[in-house]
């Protein structure tokens, strides 16, 4: 007998929205970017099917855990929970093997799902933990809400330090010598509800600063194309921009999946976008070409399996 895992279907990667629309973008980006495997406990405490319920109970007491997976050589059979132990105590079957009393109908998560998906399932099912399987259906970890809290605190602290060290806003008024603005926008994969907002904000700020319309248009087009590219083609990333020393610099940086052939990707009409992306009006393979067109300097570095960085520089002086 093995567990009957209920894996969610196509992950709906869109996080639950705050009705007031007040979610911090950094937090949204984190729960999209982090995968279940980044957060789960991978060092598992498990028992074999032949272990007794009493042995499982003793292990749970020693390790201070509220559930223990039943597993042999990576194959996942079920889970012994506190409820199972109580039922066994009441029924007088605490000495019997756990394969007879474990819970086998389980909801499981897959290790490459985004963390937002795990959060949604904790909210929906009210379980204390979810076993985590890989694509080969092998048990690779277990995730509880404590794991999520810990991982988010670590990541948020890291993000805060990075933002504190890099963000300089509205310093000076002289575009030739000093920085006007340096801002970073986290961009989530397939988040079309928000895609374009960063470029729109950049354009509005440039209009407030009364930059020449032609310059504003070029910067806005470069920022928008790069933002859409991050949304469509990357696993999520960051769009940053600054104006200093007579130059506007827009940088799109992501952590994957990378481009195998950069020269091919920069050609007119070449695209890896799927039909859904095309149905939204994008994916015609003109994005990078258009960024190059409006840029005075253009750089792209990428490596398959890692990340891509695209930099567009537009002279404003």
């Amino acid at each position, binding site marked *: 007998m093995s567990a009957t895992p209920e894996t969610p279907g196509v992950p709906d990667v869109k996080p639950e929205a705050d009705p007031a629309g007040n979610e911090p973008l950094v937090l949204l980006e984190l729960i999209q970017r982090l995968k279940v495997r980044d957060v789960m406990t991978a060092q598992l405490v498990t028992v074999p099917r032949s272990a007794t319920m009493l042995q499982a109970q003793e292990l749970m007491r020693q390790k201070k855990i509220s559930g223990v997976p039943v597993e042999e050589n990576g194959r996942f059979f079920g889970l012994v929970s506190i409820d199972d132990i109580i039922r066994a105590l009441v029924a007088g079957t605490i000495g019997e093997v756990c394969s007879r009393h474990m819970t086998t109908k389980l909801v499981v998560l897959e290790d490459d799902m985004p963390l937002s998906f795990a959060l949604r399932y904790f909210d929906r099912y009210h379980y204390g933990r979810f076993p985590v399987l890989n694509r080969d259906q092998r048990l690779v970890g277990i995730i509880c809400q404590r794991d999520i809290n810990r991982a988010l605190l670590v990541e948020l602290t890291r993000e805060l330090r990075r933002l504190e060290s890099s963000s300089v806003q509205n310093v000076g008024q002289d575009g030739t010598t000093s920085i006007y603005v340096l801002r970073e926008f986290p961009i989530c994969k397939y988040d079309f*509800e928000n*895609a374009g907002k960063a*470029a*729109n904000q950049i354009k509005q700020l440039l209009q407030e600063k009364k930059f020449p319309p032609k310059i504003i248009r070029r910067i806005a087009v470069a920022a*928008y194309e790069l933002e859409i590219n991050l949304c469509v083609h990357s696993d999520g990333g960051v769009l940053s921009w600054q104006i200093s020393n007579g130059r506007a610099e827009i940088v799109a940086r992501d952590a994957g999946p990378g481009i195998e052939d950069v020269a091919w990707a920069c050609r007119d009409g070449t695209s890896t976008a799927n039909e859904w992306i095309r149905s939204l*009006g994008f994916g015609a393979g*003109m994005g990078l070409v*258009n960024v190059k067109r409006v840029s005075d300097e253009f750089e792209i570095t990428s490596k398959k399996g890692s990340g891509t960085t695209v930099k567009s520089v537009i002279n404003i002086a």
Partner: protein
Amino acid sequence: MTMSEIADVLKAEVLVKGEGIHKGVRHVMASDLMSDVLLVDEDDMLLLTSLASDQVLRTAQIVGAVGVIVVNGKPLPSSMVNVANDLRMTLATSRLSKYEACVAAHAALNPA
């Protein structure tokens, strides 16, 4: 001819009156490919499209379009009206096909 007058010519229902509603239209772009729209360097542009998505409005804002008319009588998601209000972008919808709308707009902007 203003955006408002063009909307009348195309028998369009104006859902959001944005900043460009009384601006003159000098160029019309008809496309469902936003990447193509971003390639156009024309001022005072009206965007005709049969694509009903928020990104149409964001794209129109980036290129400085005076307004967007969604053709083919496509039902618009409510989010489009919200985004148009946020961006102060004029948004209208017309029952004409894209071809009919192009012909009507051309005739209106280029009287014999």
